Protein backbone atom coordinates (compact mmCIF):
# COMPACT_ATOMS: atom_id res chain seq x y z
CA UNK A 1 0.00 0.00 0.00
CA UNK A 2 1.29 3.45 -0.86
CA UNK A 3 1.91 6.13 1.70
CA UNK A 4 -0.48 8.91 0.80
CA UNK A 5 -3.73 10.54 1.74
CA UNK A 6 -5.58 9.90 -1.54
CA UNK A 7 -9.18 9.13 -0.92
CA UNK A 8 -8.99 10.25 2.70
CA UNK A 9 -11.01 13.42 3.09
CA UNK A 10 -11.29 15.40 6.24
CA UNK A 11 -14.84 16.59 6.38
CA UNK A 12 -14.75 18.36 9.72
CA UNK A 13 -12.28 20.76 11.27
CA UNK A 14 -11.83 18.30 14.12
CA UNK A 15 -10.64 15.61 11.71
CA UNK A 16 -8.40 18.05 9.91
CA UNK A 17 -6.93 19.19 13.22
CA UNK A 18 -5.96 15.68 14.27
CA UNK A 19 -2.28 15.31 15.08
CA UNK A 20 -1.94 12.47 12.56
CA UNK A 21 -4.39 13.29 9.78
CA UNK A 22 -3.02 10.58 7.44
CA UNK A 23 -4.31 7.06 8.12
CA UNK A 24 -0.98 5.37 7.40
CA UNK A 25 0.61 7.49 10.14
CA UNK A 26 -2.01 6.40 12.63
CA UNK A 27 -1.47 2.75 11.71
CA UNK A 28 2.28 3.24 12.09
CA UNK A 29 1.82 4.78 15.50
CA UNK A 30 -0.43 1.94 16.64
CA UNK A 31 2.16 -0.57 15.47
CA UNK A 32 4.97 1.16 17.33
CA UNK A 33 2.90 1.34 20.49
CA UNK A 34 2.00 -2.33 20.14
CA UNK A 35 5.62 -3.38 19.75
CA UNK A 36 6.68 -1.15 22.63
CA UNK A 37 3.99 -2.34 25.02
CA UNK A 38 3.78 -6.02 24.10
CA UNK A 39 6.68 -7.02 21.86
CA UNK A 40 9.53 -5.51 23.85
CA UNK A 41 8.61 -6.84 27.31
CA UNK A 42 7.69 -10.25 25.85
CA UNK A 43 10.72 -10.84 23.64
CA UNK A 44 13.36 -8.39 24.84
CA UNK A 45 15.82 -9.68 27.41
CA UNK A 46 16.54 -7.78 30.62
CA UNK A 47 19.82 -6.44 29.32
CA UNK A 48 18.22 -4.92 26.23
CA UNK A 49 15.37 -3.46 28.23
CA UNK A 50 17.45 -1.98 31.02
CA UNK A 51 20.37 -0.68 28.99
CA UNK A 52 18.65 0.36 25.77
CA UNK A 53 14.91 0.84 26.17
CA UNK A 54 14.78 2.39 29.64
CA UNK A 55 17.52 4.97 28.95
CA UNK A 56 15.89 5.76 25.62
CA UNK A 57 12.52 6.47 27.24
CA UNK A 58 13.96 8.54 30.08
CA UNK A 59 15.98 10.63 27.66
CA UNK A 60 13.00 11.03 25.35
CA UNK A 61 11.04 12.59 28.16
CA UNK A 62 13.87 14.96 29.07
CA UNK A 63 14.39 15.83 25.41
CA UNK A 64 10.72 16.64 24.94
CA UNK A 65 11.06 18.91 27.96
CA UNK A 66 14.02 20.84 26.61
CA UNK A 67 12.51 20.90 23.13
CA UNK A 68 9.45 22.68 24.50
CA UNK A 69 11.71 25.42 25.79
CA UNK A 70 14.39 25.57 23.12
CA UNK A 71 12.70 24.18 20.03
CA UNK A 72 9.20 25.54 20.48
CA UNK A 73 9.81 28.75 22.41
CA UNK A 74 13.32 29.58 21.23
CA UNK A 75 14.80 29.90 24.71
CA UNK A 76 18.05 28.14 25.35
CA UNK A 77 18.73 26.35 28.62
CA UNK A 78 21.84 24.70 29.98
CA UNK A 79 20.13 23.80 33.24
CA UNK A 80 18.23 20.70 32.16
CA UNK A 81 20.42 18.40 34.25
CA UNK A 82 19.71 20.41 37.37
CA UNK A 83 15.97 20.60 36.69
CA UNK A 84 15.98 16.83 36.35
CA UNK A 85 17.77 16.68 39.68
CA UNK A 86 15.07 18.78 41.32
CA UNK A 87 12.52 16.21 40.17
CA UNK A 88 14.57 13.32 41.48
CA UNK A 89 15.09 14.89 44.89
CA UNK A 90 11.48 16.00 45.14
CA UNK A 91 10.34 12.47 44.39
CA UNK A 92 12.80 11.09 46.93
CA UNK A 93 11.66 13.43 49.69
CA UNK A 94 8.00 12.86 48.90
CA UNK A 95 8.14 9.10 48.87
CA UNK A 96 10.19 9.13 52.07
CA UNK A 97 7.65 11.35 53.78
CA UNK A 98 4.59 9.56 52.40
CA UNK A 99 5.67 6.00 51.60
CA UNK A 100 2.11 4.78 51.29
CA UNK A 101 1.19 7.00 48.40
CA UNK A 102 1.89 5.31 45.10
CA UNK A 103 5.33 6.07 43.69
CA UNK A 104 3.94 6.77 40.21
CA UNK A 105 1.91 9.57 41.70
CA UNK A 106 5.04 11.02 43.31
CA UNK A 107 7.08 10.70 40.14
CA UNK A 108 4.49 12.79 38.32
CA UNK A 109 4.04 15.19 41.23
CA UNK A 110 7.76 15.83 41.43
CA UNK A 111 7.41 17.61 38.09
CA UNK A 112 5.58 20.43 39.86
CA UNK A 113 8.61 21.12 42.02
CA UNK A 114 10.99 21.37 39.09
CA UNK A 115 8.36 23.45 37.26
CA UNK A 116 8.38 25.98 40.11
CA UNK A 117 12.18 26.09 40.23
CA UNK A 118 12.32 26.31 36.44
CA UNK A 119 9.94 29.27 36.42
CA UNK A 120 12.07 31.03 39.01
CA UNK A 121 15.18 30.68 36.91
CA UNK A 122 13.17 31.54 33.81
CA UNK A 123 12.33 35.00 35.12
CA UNK A 124 15.43 36.62 33.54
CA UNK A 125 14.26 35.40 30.13
CA UNK A 126 12.07 38.47 29.78
CA UNK A 127 15.17 40.64 29.68
CA UNK A 128 17.91 38.41 28.29
CA UNK A 129 18.09 36.12 25.30
CA UNK A 130 20.50 33.80 23.54
CA UNK A 131 23.98 33.70 25.00
CA UNK A 132 23.02 35.64 28.14
CA UNK A 133 20.10 33.37 28.89
CA UNK A 134 22.39 30.39 28.41
CA UNK A 135 24.69 31.84 31.06
CA UNK A 136 21.77 32.49 33.42
CA UNK A 137 20.58 28.90 33.14
CA UNK A 138 24.16 27.72 33.55
CA UNK A 139 24.22 29.59 36.84
CA UNK A 140 21.02 27.73 37.78
CA UNK A 141 22.75 24.46 36.95
CA UNK A 142 25.69 25.16 39.23
CA UNK A 143 23.64 26.65 42.01
CA UNK A 144 21.21 23.72 42.11
CA UNK A 145 24.02 21.19 41.87
CA UNK A 146 25.62 22.90 44.84
CA UNK A 147 22.33 22.55 46.76
CA UNK A 148 22.12 18.85 45.88
CA UNK A 149 25.44 18.27 47.64
CA UNK A 150 25.45 20.87 50.39
CA UNK A 151 21.95 20.40 51.75
CA UNK A 152 22.04 16.99 53.47
CA UNK A 153 18.32 17.24 54.18
CA UNK A 154 17.76 16.60 50.49
CA UNK A 155 19.31 13.14 50.65
CA UNK A 156 18.00 12.42 54.16
CA UNK A 157 21.43 12.99 55.70
CA UNK A 158 22.71 9.70 54.37
CA UNK A 159 26.46 9.27 54.74
CA UNK A 160 26.97 8.47 51.05
CA UNK A 161 25.18 11.63 49.94
CA UNK A 162 23.21 9.51 47.51
CA UNK A 163 19.53 8.97 46.82
CA UNK A 164 18.49 5.50 47.91
CA UNK A 165 15.58 4.06 46.02
CA UNK A 166 13.40 1.94 48.24
CA UNK A 167 11.00 -0.80 47.21
CA UNK A 168 7.62 0.53 46.15
CA UNK A 169 4.82 -1.53 44.68
CA UNK A 170 1.91 -1.27 42.31
CA UNK A 171 -0.86 -3.85 42.86
CA UNK A 172 1.63 -5.81 44.95
CA UNK A 173 4.32 -5.91 42.23
CA UNK A 174 7.56 -4.12 43.09
CA UNK A 175 8.11 -1.35 40.55
CA UNK A 176 11.06 0.38 42.16
CA UNK A 177 13.97 -0.90 44.23
CA UNK A 178 16.19 -3.93 43.79
CA UNK A 179 13.36 -6.47 43.36
CA UNK A 180 11.66 -4.61 40.54
CA UNK A 181 12.30 -6.42 37.26
CA UNK A 182 13.47 -4.55 34.20
CA UNK A 183 10.21 -5.47 32.49
CA UNK A 184 7.99 -3.92 35.14
CA UNK A 185 10.09 -0.78 35.41
CA UNK A 186 10.01 -0.49 31.63
CA UNK A 187 6.25 -0.84 31.44
CA UNK A 188 5.66 1.76 34.13
CA UNK A 189 8.05 4.12 32.36
CA UNK A 190 6.43 3.47 29.00
CA UNK A 191 3.05 4.37 30.46
CA UNK A 192 4.39 7.64 31.85
CA UNK A 193 6.17 8.54 28.61
CA UNK A 194 3.20 7.77 26.38
CA UNK A 195 0.85 9.74 28.60
CA UNK A 196 3.16 12.74 28.81
CA UNK A 197 3.89 12.71 25.09
CA UNK A 198 0.18 12.83 24.42
CA UNK A 199 -0.13 15.83 26.76
CA UNK A 200 2.84 17.59 25.12
CA UNK A 201 1.38 17.00 21.69
CA UNK A 202 -1.94 18.46 22.80
CA UNK A 203 -0.31 21.56 24.21
CA UNK A 204 1.93 22.31 21.25
CA UNK A 205 -0.96 21.94 18.81
CA UNK A 206 -3.20 24.42 20.63
CA UNK A 207 -3.26 28.05 21.62
CA UNK A 208 -0.37 27.78 24.08
CA UNK A 209 1.88 25.97 21.62
CA UNK A 210 1.16 28.56 18.95
CA UNK A 211 1.96 31.34 21.42
CA UNK A 212 5.30 29.69 22.19
CA UNK A 213 6.19 29.45 18.53
CA UNK A 214 5.01 33.01 17.90
CA UNK A 215 7.34 34.25 20.63
CA UNK A 216 10.12 32.15 19.15
CA UNK A 217 9.63 33.37 15.58
CA UNK A 218 8.85 37.06 16.09
CA UNK A 219 8.27 38.30 19.59
CA UNK A 220 7.24 41.86 18.67
CA UNK A 221 4.51 40.59 16.37
CA UNK A 222 3.43 38.11 19.03
CA UNK A 223 2.88 40.93 21.48
CA UNK A 224 0.63 42.61 18.95
CA UNK A 225 -1.51 39.50 18.82
CA UNK A 226 -2.12 40.12 22.51
CA UNK A 227 0.42 37.53 23.62
CA UNK A 228 2.16 38.62 26.81
CA UNK A 229 5.79 37.70 26.66
CA UNK A 230 6.59 37.00 30.31
CA UNK A 231 3.68 34.66 31.09
CA UNK A 232 4.22 32.84 27.80
CA UNK A 233 7.92 32.32 28.43
CA UNK A 234 7.30 31.34 32.04
CA UNK A 235 4.70 28.80 30.96
CA UNK A 236 7.29 27.33 28.62
CA UNK A 237 9.83 27.19 31.44
CA UNK A 238 7.25 25.59 33.73
CA UNK A 239 6.08 22.92 31.30
CA UNK A 240 9.61 22.25 30.10
CA UNK A 241 10.97 21.88 33.63
CA UNK A 242 7.99 19.73 34.57
CA UNK A 243 9.05 17.26 31.90
CA UNK A 244 12.69 17.48 32.95
CA UNK A 245 11.70 16.89 36.58
CA UNK A 246 9.61 13.82 35.80
CA UNK A 247 12.42 12.55 33.59
CA UNK A 248 14.86 13.04 36.47
CA UNK A 249 12.61 11.19 38.89
CA UNK A 250 12.19 8.37 36.35
CA UNK A 251 15.93 8.29 35.83
CA UNK A 252 16.60 7.77 39.53
CA UNK A 253 13.69 5.55 40.42
CA UNK A 254 13.07 3.46 37.31
CA UNK A 255 16.53 3.33 35.78
CA UNK A 256 19.52 3.95 38.05
CA UNK A 257 17.80 2.79 41.21
CA UNK A 258 19.71 5.30 43.28
CA UNK A 259 22.85 7.35 43.03
CA UNK A 260 24.62 10.58 43.65
CA UNK A 261 23.25 13.74 42.12
CA UNK A 262 26.62 15.09 41.09
CA UNK A 263 27.22 12.13 38.83
CA UNK A 264 23.85 12.22 37.17
CA UNK A 265 22.42 15.70 37.17
CA UNK A 266 25.48 17.62 36.13
CA UNK A 267 26.32 19.97 33.29
CA UNK A 268 27.27 17.06 31.04
CA UNK A 269 23.72 15.83 31.31
CA UNK A 270 22.43 19.27 30.32
CA UNK A 271 24.60 19.23 27.21
CA UNK A 272 23.73 15.63 26.47
CA UNK A 273 20.04 16.51 26.29
CA UNK A 274 20.67 19.68 24.33
CA UNK A 275 22.49 17.53 21.76
CA UNK A 276 19.51 15.17 21.58
CA UNK A 277 17.25 18.14 20.89
CA UNK A 278 19.53 19.47 18.16
CA UNK A 279 20.11 16.10 16.49
CA UNK A 280 16.47 15.12 16.72
CA UNK A 281 15.16 18.43 15.51
CA UNK A 282 14.24 21.70 17.18
CA UNK A 283 10.51 22.02 17.58
CA UNK A 284 9.56 18.41 16.91
CA UNK A 285 8.21 15.82 19.31
CA UNK A 286 8.95 12.93 16.95
CA UNK A 287 12.43 14.36 16.60
CA UNK A 288 12.85 14.31 20.37
CA UNK A 289 12.41 10.55 20.31
CA UNK A 290 14.78 10.20 17.38
CA UNK A 291 17.50 12.30 18.99
CA UNK A 292 17.14 10.47 22.29
CA UNK A 293 17.18 7.06 20.61
CA UNK A 294 20.23 7.90 18.58
CA UNK A 295 22.43 9.40 21.25
CA UNK A 296 21.34 7.17 24.13
CA UNK A 297 21.93 3.98 22.16
CA UNK A 298 25.30 4.89 20.65
CA UNK A 299 27.41 3.94 23.71
CA UNK A 300 25.67 0.57 23.93
CA UNK A 301 26.09 -0.05 20.23
CA UNK A 302 29.78 0.74 20.38
CA UNK A 303 30.40 -1.11 23.61
CA UNK A 304 28.44 -4.27 22.86
CA UNK A 305 27.36 -4.13 19.24
CA UNK A 306 30.78 -3.74 17.66
CA UNK A 307 32.38 -6.63 19.64
CA UNK A 308 29.40 -8.78 18.71
CA UNK A 309 30.25 -8.39 15.01
CA UNK A 310 33.92 -9.07 15.68
CA UNK A 311 35.29 -5.54 16.03
CA UNK A 312 36.88 -5.48 19.43
CA UNK A 313 37.24 -2.08 21.00
CA UNK A 314 37.68 -1.42 24.68
CA UNK A 315 35.11 0.30 26.87
CA UNK A 316 37.16 3.50 26.98
CA UNK A 317 37.54 3.60 23.21
CA UNK A 318 33.82 3.06 22.81
CA UNK A 319 33.18 6.05 25.00
CA UNK A 320 35.57 8.25 23.06
CA UNK A 321 34.05 7.06 19.82
CA UNK A 322 30.62 8.12 21.07
CA UNK A 323 31.83 11.62 21.85
CA UNK A 324 33.49 11.93 18.48
CA UNK A 325 30.51 10.71 16.48
CA UNK A 326 28.01 12.85 18.39
CA UNK A 327 30.28 15.88 18.20
CA UNK A 328 30.78 15.52 14.47
CA UNK A 329 27.07 14.98 13.86
CA UNK A 330 26.12 18.04 15.89
CA UNK A 331 28.40 20.20 13.77
CA UNK A 332 27.12 18.65 10.54
CA UNK A 333 23.49 19.02 11.53
CA UNK A 334 23.84 22.58 12.77
CA UNK A 335 25.32 23.54 9.42
CA UNK A 336 23.36 21.36 7.03
CA UNK A 337 20.02 20.54 8.64
CA UNK A 338 19.14 22.61 11.70
CA UNK A 339 15.80 20.85 11.89
CA UNK A 340 17.50 17.57 12.60
CA UNK A 341 16.48 13.99 12.05
CA UNK A 342 12.81 14.96 12.22
CA UNK A 343 13.22 17.09 9.09
CA UNK A 344 14.98 14.26 7.25
CA UNK A 345 12.08 12.01 8.21
CA UNK A 346 9.59 14.57 6.94
CA UNK A 347 11.44 14.90 3.63
CA UNK A 348 11.38 11.13 3.28
CA UNK A 349 7.64 11.13 3.90
CA UNK A 350 7.07 13.88 1.35
CA UNK A 351 9.05 11.85 -1.18
CA UNK A 352 7.06 8.75 -0.25
CA UNK A 353 3.77 10.51 -0.85
CA UNK A 354 4.80 11.04 -4.44
CA UNK A 355 6.61 7.75 -4.92
CA UNK A 356 6.74 6.01 -7.37
CA UNK A 357 5.51 8.84 -9.58
CA UNK A 358 7.48 11.89 -8.57
CA UNK A 359 5.67 14.27 -10.89
Amino acid sequence: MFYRENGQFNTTYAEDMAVFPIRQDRIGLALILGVAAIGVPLFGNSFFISSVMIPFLVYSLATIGLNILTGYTGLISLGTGAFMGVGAFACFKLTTAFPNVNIIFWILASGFFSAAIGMLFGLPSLRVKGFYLAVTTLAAQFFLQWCFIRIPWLYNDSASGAIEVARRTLFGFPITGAQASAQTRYLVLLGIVVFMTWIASNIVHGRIGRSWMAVRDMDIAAELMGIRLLPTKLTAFAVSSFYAGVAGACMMFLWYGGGEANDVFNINQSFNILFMVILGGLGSLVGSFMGAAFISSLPTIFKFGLPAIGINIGGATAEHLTFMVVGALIVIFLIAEPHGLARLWQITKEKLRLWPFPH
Partner: protein
Amino acid sequence: MNVVADIIALDNAQPTAPRRIGEVMLKLDNVSLSFGGVKAIRDVSFDVRRGEIRAIIGPNGAGKTSMLNVINGFYHPQQGVITFKGEQRSAMRPYVAASQGIARTFQNVALFKGMSTLDNIMTGRTMKMKRGLFWQALRHGPAMAEEIEHRAVAERIIDFLEIAHIRKTPVGRLPYGLQKRVELGRALATEPELLLLDEPMAGMNLEEKQDMSRFILTVNDTFGTTIALIEHDMGVVMDLSDRIVVLDYGQKIADGTPAEVKADQKVIDAYLGVAH
Protein backbone atom coordinates in the same frame (compact mmCIF):
# COMPACT_ATOMS: atom_id res chain seq x y z
CA MET B 1 -3.00 54.16 -12.58
CA ASN B 2 -6.40 53.89 -11.09
CA VAL B 3 -6.66 50.71 -9.10
CA VAL B 4 -10.02 51.37 -7.57
CA ALA B 5 -11.64 52.15 -10.88
CA ASP B 6 -10.33 48.82 -12.13
CA ILE B 7 -11.74 46.99 -9.19
CA ILE B 8 -15.09 48.70 -9.43
CA ALA B 9 -15.18 47.96 -13.13
CA LEU B 10 -14.49 44.31 -12.39
CA ASP B 11 -16.84 44.17 -9.54
CA ASN B 12 -19.66 46.53 -10.27
CA ALA B 13 -22.32 43.96 -9.53
CA GLN B 14 -21.91 44.97 -5.89
CA PRO B 15 -23.87 48.07 -4.98
CA THR B 16 -21.66 50.50 -3.11
CA ALA B 17 -23.52 51.36 0.05
CA PRO B 18 -22.66 54.79 1.40
CA ARG B 19 -19.84 54.38 3.92
CA ARG B 20 -20.29 55.98 7.28
CA ILE B 21 -17.49 57.94 8.77
CA GLY B 22 -18.10 58.55 12.42
CA GLU B 23 -16.58 60.33 15.37
CA VAL B 24 -12.90 60.74 16.13
CA MET B 25 -11.50 57.38 17.24
CA LEU B 26 -7.83 58.16 17.65
CA LYS B 27 -6.41 61.56 18.38
CA LEU B 28 -2.78 62.56 18.69
CA ASP B 29 -1.95 65.96 20.17
CA ASN B 30 1.50 67.49 19.89
CA VAL B 31 3.30 64.17 19.88
CA SER B 32 7.11 64.24 19.85
CA LEU B 33 9.42 61.26 19.81
CA SER B 34 13.18 61.19 19.67
CA PHE B 35 15.87 58.55 19.78
CA GLY B 36 18.86 60.11 21.44
CA GLY B 37 19.60 63.02 19.14
CA VAL B 38 17.34 61.89 16.31
CA LYS B 39 13.97 63.60 16.36
CA ALA B 40 11.74 61.09 14.59
CA ILE B 41 8.45 62.90 15.28
CA ARG B 42 8.16 66.58 16.07
CA ASP B 43 5.04 68.04 17.54
CA VAL B 44 2.59 66.20 15.31
CA SER B 45 -1.19 66.32 15.80
CA PHE B 46 -3.82 64.55 13.76
CA ASP B 47 -6.83 62.33 14.22
CA VAL B 48 -8.42 59.24 12.72
CA ARG B 49 -12.19 58.97 12.46
CA ARG B 50 -14.15 55.79 12.91
CA GLY B 51 -14.72 54.03 9.60
CA GLU B 52 -12.31 56.02 7.49
CA ILE B 53 -9.21 55.07 5.57
CA ARG B 54 -6.49 57.44 6.66
CA ALA B 55 -3.18 57.50 4.84
CA ILE B 56 0.15 58.60 6.26
CA ILE B 57 2.61 59.52 3.57
CA GLY B 58 5.99 61.13 3.32
CA PRO B 59 9.52 60.49 2.10
CA ASN B 60 11.71 57.78 3.63
CA GLY B 61 12.76 58.55 7.17
CA ALA B 62 9.87 60.98 7.63
CA GLY B 63 8.72 59.19 10.78
CA LYS B 64 5.74 57.26 9.41
CA THR B 65 6.67 53.89 10.87
CA SER B 66 7.60 55.57 14.14
CA MET B 67 4.11 57.05 14.18
CA LEU B 68 2.51 53.60 13.94
CA ASN B 69 4.88 52.37 16.63
CA VAL B 70 3.68 55.14 18.90
CA ILE B 71 0.05 54.31 18.19
CA ASN B 72 0.39 50.64 19.06
CA GLY B 73 2.59 51.11 22.07
CA PHE B 74 6.02 50.01 20.84
CA TYR B 75 7.41 53.49 21.40
CA HIS B 76 6.40 55.92 24.08
CA PRO B 77 6.51 59.53 22.95
CA GLN B 78 8.40 61.97 25.16
CA GLN B 79 5.70 64.58 24.67
CA GLY B 80 2.11 64.73 23.63
CA VAL B 81 -1.23 63.19 24.38
CA ILE B 82 -2.84 60.22 22.67
CA THR B 83 -6.55 59.65 23.01
CA PHE B 84 -8.05 56.38 21.80
CA LYS B 85 -11.80 55.78 21.88
CA GLY B 86 -12.22 58.77 24.17
CA GLU B 87 -9.68 57.68 26.73
CA GLN B 88 -6.39 59.41 27.22
CA ARG B 89 -3.63 56.89 27.08
CA SER B 90 -0.57 56.44 29.20
CA ALA B 91 2.56 54.55 28.23
CA MET B 92 1.50 50.97 27.60
CA ARG B 93 2.69 47.68 26.23
CA PRO B 94 1.70 46.60 22.70
CA TYR B 95 -0.45 43.76 24.04
CA VAL B 96 -2.63 46.32 25.80
CA ALA B 97 -3.06 48.20 22.54
CA ALA B 98 -3.94 44.86 20.94
CA SER B 99 -6.56 44.16 23.58
CA GLN B 100 -8.07 47.60 22.93
CA GLY B 101 -8.55 46.69 19.28
CA ILE B 102 -5.43 47.91 17.48
CA ALA B 103 -3.78 45.51 15.02
CA ARG B 104 -1.07 46.08 12.47
CA THR B 105 1.14 44.73 9.75
CA PHE B 106 4.82 45.53 9.37
CA GLN B 107 6.89 47.22 6.71
CA ASN B 108 9.20 44.19 6.62
CA VAL B 109 6.88 41.21 6.92
CA ALA B 110 6.93 39.99 10.52
CA LEU B 111 5.23 36.63 10.20
CA PHE B 112 5.89 33.61 12.39
CA LYS B 113 8.23 31.96 9.91
CA GLY B 114 8.20 28.44 11.26
CA MET B 115 4.41 28.18 11.33
CA SER B 116 1.87 27.46 8.60
CA THR B 117 -0.47 30.05 7.12
CA LEU B 118 -3.29 28.58 9.15
CA ASP B 119 -1.33 28.64 12.41
CA ASN B 120 -0.27 32.23 11.79
CA ILE B 121 -3.88 33.24 11.40
CA MET B 122 -4.97 31.10 14.34
CA THR B 123 -2.38 32.93 16.44
CA GLY B 124 -4.32 36.07 15.65
CA ARG B 125 -7.22 34.49 17.56
CA THR B 126 -5.15 34.08 20.74
CA MET B 127 -6.76 36.97 22.58
CA LYS B 128 -10.22 35.54 22.01
CA MET B 129 -9.30 32.09 23.29
CA LYS B 130 -9.76 31.55 26.96
CA ARG B 131 -9.11 27.90 27.86
CA GLY B 132 -6.10 27.48 30.12
CA LEU B 133 -3.26 25.02 30.32
CA PHE B 134 -5.33 22.25 31.88
CA TRP B 135 -7.86 22.01 29.07
CA GLN B 136 -5.22 22.68 26.45
CA ALA B 137 -3.27 19.71 27.79
CA LEU B 138 -6.28 17.45 27.24
CA ARG B 139 -7.34 19.02 23.90
CA HIS B 140 -10.81 17.66 24.43
CA GLY B 141 -14.11 19.08 25.58
CA PRO B 142 -14.08 22.86 25.94
CA ALA B 143 -10.57 23.28 24.53
CA MET B 144 -11.44 21.37 21.37
CA ALA B 145 -14.76 23.18 21.01
CA GLU B 146 -12.95 26.49 21.30
CA GLU B 147 -10.29 25.41 18.81
CA ILE B 148 -12.95 24.40 16.28
CA GLU B 149 -14.92 27.60 16.76
CA HIS B 150 -11.85 29.73 16.06
CA ARG B 151 -10.72 27.51 13.23
CA ALA B 152 -13.99 28.35 11.51
CA VAL B 153 -13.23 32.07 11.84
CA ALA B 154 -9.70 31.54 10.54
CA GLU B 155 -11.11 29.65 7.55
CA ARG B 156 -13.44 32.53 6.71
CA ILE B 157 -10.46 34.87 6.65
CA ILE B 158 -8.51 32.39 4.53
CA ASP B 159 -11.39 32.21 2.04
CA PHE B 160 -11.75 35.98 1.94
CA LEU B 161 -8.04 36.49 1.21
CA GLU B 162 -8.06 33.64 -1.32
CA ILE B 163 -5.20 31.77 0.32
CA ALA B 164 -6.87 28.40 0.87
CA HIS B 165 -4.30 26.64 -1.32
CA ILE B 166 -1.44 27.63 1.01
CA ARG B 167 -3.29 26.89 4.23
CA LYS B 168 -0.81 24.29 5.47
CA THR B 169 2.34 25.75 3.92
CA PRO B 170 5.01 27.10 6.27
CA VAL B 171 4.95 30.83 5.58
CA GLY B 172 8.72 31.01 5.24
CA ARG B 173 8.34 29.22 1.91
CA LEU B 174 5.77 31.64 0.47
CA PRO B 175 6.55 34.39 -2.03
CA TYR B 176 6.64 37.91 -0.66
CA GLY B 177 3.26 38.99 -1.99
CA LEU B 178 1.49 36.08 -0.34
CA GLN B 179 3.35 36.66 2.91
CA LYS B 180 1.96 40.19 2.99
CA ARG B 181 -1.48 38.76 2.47
CA VAL B 182 -1.09 36.23 5.28
CA GLU B 183 0.09 39.02 7.53
CA LEU B 184 -3.07 40.96 6.74
CA GLY B 185 -5.04 37.83 7.57
CA ARG B 186 -3.32 37.47 10.89
CA ALA B 187 -4.10 41.08 11.76
CA LEU B 188 -7.73 40.64 10.69
CA ALA B 189 -8.02 37.56 12.88
CA THR B 190 -7.74 39.77 15.94
CA GLU B 191 -10.93 41.54 14.76
CA PRO B 192 -9.39 44.99 15.11
CA GLU B 193 -11.28 48.24 15.33
CA LEU B 194 -8.23 50.10 14.09
CA LEU B 195 -5.97 48.43 11.56
CA LEU B 196 -2.53 49.89 10.93
CA LEU B 197 -0.89 48.89 7.65
CA ASP B 198 2.76 49.76 7.11
CA GLU B 199 3.42 49.79 3.35
CA PRO B 200 1.11 46.85 2.58
CA MET B 201 1.92 47.01 -1.12
CA ALA B 202 5.66 47.60 -1.04
CA GLY B 203 7.47 45.34 -3.49
CA MET B 204 4.29 44.09 -5.14
CA ASN B 205 3.47 43.94 -8.82
CA LEU B 206 0.41 45.64 -10.28
CA GLU B 207 -1.84 42.62 -9.98
CA GLU B 208 -0.88 42.02 -6.37
CA LYS B 209 -1.45 45.68 -5.59
CA GLN B 210 -4.91 45.48 -7.09
CA ASP B 211 -5.72 42.43 -4.99
CA MET B 212 -4.44 44.09 -1.85
CA SER B 213 -6.37 47.29 -2.57
CA ARG B 214 -9.51 45.25 -3.05
CA PHE B 215 -8.97 43.49 0.28
CA ILE B 216 -8.35 46.75 2.11
CA LEU B 217 -11.47 48.33 0.64
CA THR B 218 -13.59 45.30 1.42
CA VAL B 219 -12.35 45.14 5.01
CA ASN B 220 -13.16 48.79 5.45
CA ASP B 221 -16.51 48.54 3.68
CA THR B 222 -17.92 45.31 4.99
CA PHE B 223 -16.53 45.18 8.48
CA GLY B 224 -16.35 48.93 9.00
CA THR B 225 -12.77 48.59 10.19
CA THR B 226 -10.94 51.86 10.53
CA ILE B 227 -7.67 51.78 8.64
CA ALA B 228 -4.52 53.88 8.88
CA LEU B 229 -2.08 53.02 6.17
CA ILE B 230 1.37 54.05 5.04
CA GLU B 231 1.96 53.72 1.34
CA HIS B 232 4.36 55.10 -1.21
CA ASP B 233 2.33 54.41 -4.34
CA MET B 234 0.54 57.73 -4.78
CA GLY B 235 -2.02 56.27 -7.15
CA VAL B 236 -3.09 53.78 -4.51
CA VAL B 237 -3.07 56.37 -1.74
CA MET B 238 -5.17 58.86 -3.65
CA ASP B 239 -7.68 56.19 -4.60
CA LEU B 240 -8.05 54.46 -1.28
CA SER B 241 -7.89 57.12 1.35
CA ASP B 242 -10.46 59.51 2.71
CA ARG B 243 -7.89 61.80 4.27
CA ILE B 244 -4.13 61.99 4.11
CA VAL B 245 -1.58 63.28 6.57
CA VAL B 246 1.83 64.15 5.14
CA LEU B 247 5.00 63.94 7.21
CA ASP B 248 8.41 65.24 6.31
CA TYR B 249 11.43 65.18 8.62
CA GLY B 250 9.16 64.23 11.50
CA GLN B 251 6.86 67.19 11.00
CA LYS B 252 3.34 67.33 9.68
CA ILE B 253 3.36 69.43 6.55
CA ALA B 254 -0.15 68.80 5.27
CA ASP B 255 -3.42 67.15 6.25
CA GLY B 256 -6.58 66.86 4.23
CA THR B 257 -8.46 65.12 1.45
CA PRO B 258 -6.50 63.65 -1.46
CA ALA B 259 -7.40 66.63 -3.63
CA GLU B 260 -6.26 69.14 -1.02
CA VAL B 261 -3.01 67.32 -0.36
CA LYS B 262 -2.26 66.91 -4.04
CA ALA B 263 -2.53 70.64 -4.54
CA ASP B 264 -0.48 71.60 -1.50
CA GLN B 265 2.73 73.40 -2.41
CA LYS B 266 4.66 72.08 0.61
CA VAL B 267 3.80 68.51 -0.35
CA ILE B 268 4.88 69.06 -3.91
CA ASP B 269 8.15 70.55 -2.68
CA ALA B 270 8.80 67.70 -0.27
CA TYR B 271 8.23 65.11 -2.98
CA LEU B 272 10.23 66.94 -5.60
CA GLY B 273 13.07 67.35 -3.14
CA VAL B 274 13.11 71.16 -2.99
CA ALA B 275 15.69 72.33 -0.45
CA HIS B 276 14.26 72.79 3.03
